[in-house]
C-alpha cells in the first residue's frame, strides 16, 4: 500500500467511527485499499492530477453552513436542494433530504476500477442527495457547495437518481464554491433509468480556481431508456470526471455532450466510458474543449460494444482547440468491439483557431479580442445549443462569456 493510500485509510477509518452504516463504509474503504489508487502510468488516468492528492486532508468537513452564501438565481419550475460540503442545507432547500441508505453505499462496491473514487465517496459521504421519480416528469436542481478550505476537511457530495419505468426527470447538478479558498471534493453520482424512462441531466462544474475535484458518475439504462447528459466543466484547479455509462437494456440510448475550458494551469480531465451491453443501443458523444494558458484539457471517450450488443450504433465527435502556446489538449476516441453488426463512427481533431475565419472577422472590423472570443464561442456552440432549458442556457452563456480566455494570436503556436 502506498504511503498516500495508507494515510487515506487511516483518516477515513477514523472518520467513519462517527458515521452511520459503518459496515458498508468499511467495505467501501477495504475495496479501495485493495484496488489501490490509480497512477499516472494508467492509460485512463494520464491527465488527471493525481499528485494533488498528496496535499489533501481526507477527513470529511463538518458541513458548517456559511451564513451568507451567494447562489445562482433559482430556475423557474425546478425544485432546489442545497448541500454544503455534502451536508444537507435545509434552510436553503425547497425539499427535505432523505436519509442515506446502506444499500446505496453497497452498490458502489460493484463498480469498475475507473470508478475508484466513488469508493472513497461511499466511505465518507455524509448525506445523500436523492431523487426518485415514479411517474410523470419532475424537475430538480441540486447545488453542491464546497465551503471548507482543503485544510479543514474534504467534501463528499453524493447524488442518487432513480427514474422508474416510463417516468422522466430534468436534473440540474451544480458544483460551486462558497469562498475563494481551495477545497477538496470527491463527488459521486449514480443514475438508474428503468425501462422507457428518460432523463436530461445538466452538470455544471464551476468550483473556484483553487479547488481539486475527483468526480465519478455511473449510469445504468434499462430497455428504451434515454439519457441526455450535458456537462460543462470550467472550474477547479484540477478536475477529473469519470463517466461510466452502461446501456443495459435494448434500444437504450445516451446522448453525451461535454464542454471543458482550461486556462492558467488548470487541468480538466474527462474519461467517458460507454458500454453497450444490449441490442440496438445507441450512443452519441460530443466533446468540445478549449485549452488556454498553460492548461491541460483531455477527453478520453471509450465505447465498448459487448458481444450481446448487436446493431449497436455509436457516434463520437471530439474536438479540441489549442488556444495557448503552452497549453495541452488531447482528445481520444477508443473503440472496443466484440460483435460484428455495429455502426461506430468517430471524428476527433485538435487544432488552433482557423486563421481564415479570424481574418474574415477582422476584415469586417471586429476587434481582435472579440473575434477570438467569437470563434471560441462558435467552437462550443454545438454543446451550448443542446441545453434545452432557456433560463439555464442563458445563465451558462453569461458565465462562459466571462470565462472565455482571449489569447492573443501571437501566443498561438
Amino acid at each position, binding site marked *: 500500500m502506498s504511503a498516500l493510500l495508507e494515510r487515506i485509510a487511516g483518516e477515513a477509518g477514523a472518520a467513519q467511527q462517527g458515521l452511520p452504516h459503518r459496515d458498508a463504509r468499511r467495505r467501501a474503504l477495504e475495496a479501495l485499499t485493495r484496488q489501490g489508487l490509480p497512477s499516472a502510468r494508467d492509460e485512463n488516468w494520464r491527465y488527471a492530477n493525481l499528485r494533488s492528492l498528496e496535499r489533501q486532508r481526507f477527513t470529511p468537513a463538518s458541513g458548517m453552513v456559511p451564513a451568507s452564501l451567494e447562489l445562482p438565481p433559482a430556475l423557474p419550475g425546478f425544485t432546489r436542494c442545497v448541500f454544503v460540503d455534502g451536508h444537507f442545507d435545509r434552510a436553503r432547500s425547497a425539499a427535505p433530504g432523505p436519509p442515506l441508505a446502506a444499500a446505496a453505499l453497497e452498490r458502489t462496491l460493484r463498480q469498475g476500477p475507473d470508478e475508484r473514487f466513488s469508493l472513497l465517496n461511499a466511505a465518507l459521504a455524509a448525506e445523500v442527495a436523492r431523487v426518485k421519480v415514479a411517474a410523470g416528469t419532475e424537475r430538480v436542481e441540486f447545488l453542491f457547495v464546497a465551503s471548507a478550505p482543503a485544510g479543514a476537511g474534504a467534501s463528499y457530495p453524493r447524488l442518487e437518481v432513480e427514474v422508474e419505468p416510463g417516468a422522466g426527470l430534468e436534473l440540474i447538478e451544480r458544483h460551486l464554491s462558497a469562498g475563494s479558498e481551495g477545497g477538496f471534493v470527491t463527488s459521486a453520482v449514480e443514475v438508474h433509468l428503468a425501462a422507457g424512462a428518460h432523463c436530461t441531466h445538466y452538470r455544471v462544474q464551476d468550483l473556484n480556481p483553487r479547488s481539486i475535484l475527483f468526480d465519478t458518475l455511473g449510469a445504468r439504462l434499462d430497455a428504451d431508456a434515454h439519457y441526455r447528459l450535458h456537462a460543462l466543466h470550467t472550474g477547479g484547479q484540477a478536475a477529473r470526471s469519470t463517466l461510466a455509462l452502461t446501456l443495459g437494456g435494448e434500444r437504450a440510448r445516451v446522448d453525451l455532450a461535454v464542454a471543458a475550458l482550461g486556462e492558467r494551469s488548470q487541468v480538466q480531465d474527462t474519461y467517458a466510458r460507454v458500454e453497450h451491453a444490449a441490442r440496438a443501443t445507441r450512443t452519441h458523444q460530443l466533446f468540445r474543449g478549449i485549452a488556454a494558458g498553460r492548461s491541460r484539457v483531455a477527453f478520453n471517450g471509450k465505447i465498448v460494444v459487448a458481444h450481446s450488443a448487436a446493431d449497436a450504433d455509436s457516434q463520437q465527435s471530439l474536438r479540441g482547440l489549442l488556444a495557448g502556446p503552452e497549453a495541452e489538449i488531447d482528445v481520444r476516441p477508443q473503440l472496443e468491439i466484440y460483435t460484428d453488426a455495429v455502426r461506430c463512427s468517430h471524428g476527433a481533431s485538435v487544432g488552433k483557431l*482557423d*486563421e*481564415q*475565419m479570424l*481574418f*474574415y*472577422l*477582422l*476584415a*469586417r*472590423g*471586429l*476587434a*481582435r479580442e*472579440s*473575434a477570438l472570443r*467569437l*470563434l471560441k*464561442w*462558435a*467552437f*462550443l*456552440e*454545438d454543446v451550448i445549443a443542446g441545453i434545452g432549458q432557456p433560463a439555464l442556457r442563458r445563465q451558462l452563456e453569461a458565465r462562459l462569456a466571462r470565462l472565455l480566455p482571449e489569447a492573443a494570436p501571437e501566443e498561438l503556436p
Partner: protein
Amino acid sequence: MDSTALLEIEDLEVTVEGRKILNGLRLSVPRGQVHAIMGPNGSGKSTLAHVLAGRPGYEVTGGRVRYAGKDLLSLAPEERARAGLFLGFQYPVEIPGVNNVYLLKAALNAARTAQGQPEVDAFDFLALVREKMRLMRMEDSFLSRGVNEGFSGGEKKRNEILQMLVLEPTLAILDETDSGLDIDALKIVAAGINTLRSPARSTVLVTHYQRLLEHVVPDAVHVLSRGRIVRSGGAELARELERRGYDWVSGEAA
C-alpha cells in the same frame, strides 16, 4: 499624381513564400470612381486585394499605399475596415456557430464606435438589414444561419454584397464577386454595387471576365499581368480584352 485620389498605390512589391507576386504595381483610384482590375488567373489580383485588406502571410518588400490620406499598410486589418475599407472575398469562409446577423451588427457597431457614433439601435438595425436583404433578394431565414454556413457559391457572394450595403464602405474592393454567379444573381449583385456609387465612395472591381462590367460600368479598367498594371483604359478596354484575350496585353508587356 492625382491629389484627390482615395487610394494611391506606388511601386508596390509583394512576396509570398519567397516568390515575388506583385512587382512594382502602381494604381490611383480617385474618389467617386469605379475601377476594374482584370487579368489572367495567377496574375496577382487576389494578392493585391488581400494586401490592401491586411491579410497576414504577404510580405511587402517595397512601395507605398495611401488610403484617405493614411499610410494604409501601417494599419491593422480591423483598423482598415473601420476606416471604411471593405474586402469582398473571392472565397468567403464559412464560420459555423457565428450567426450572420450577429456578425453584421458587430461589424456595423465596430465601425460606428470607431467614428465616435453610438451603437446602432436593435430595432433600426433589423429594419436596415431587412431592407438590404430585399435588395439582394435574400430570404429571412438567412439571418439566423451561421456565417456562410452551407451557402451556395452564389449565396456567399450575395452575402458579401449584403455586408457591403450594410457597412457602406468608403472603398470597396470586390474580388471576383461575379464569378460563379448565374445571370440573375449577377444582375442582383451589380444592382447592389451600383446603389453604393456616390461621389464620396470608390470601388475596385477585381474580375476575370468583362460580364459584370456590362452592368457596373467602370470609370477605368486596368490590366494586371505578372504583378504589375500593364495597361489602363476606359470601359471599352474590357470589351477589347474579351475579344482579343489576355495574351494580347501580356504579350505587349513582355
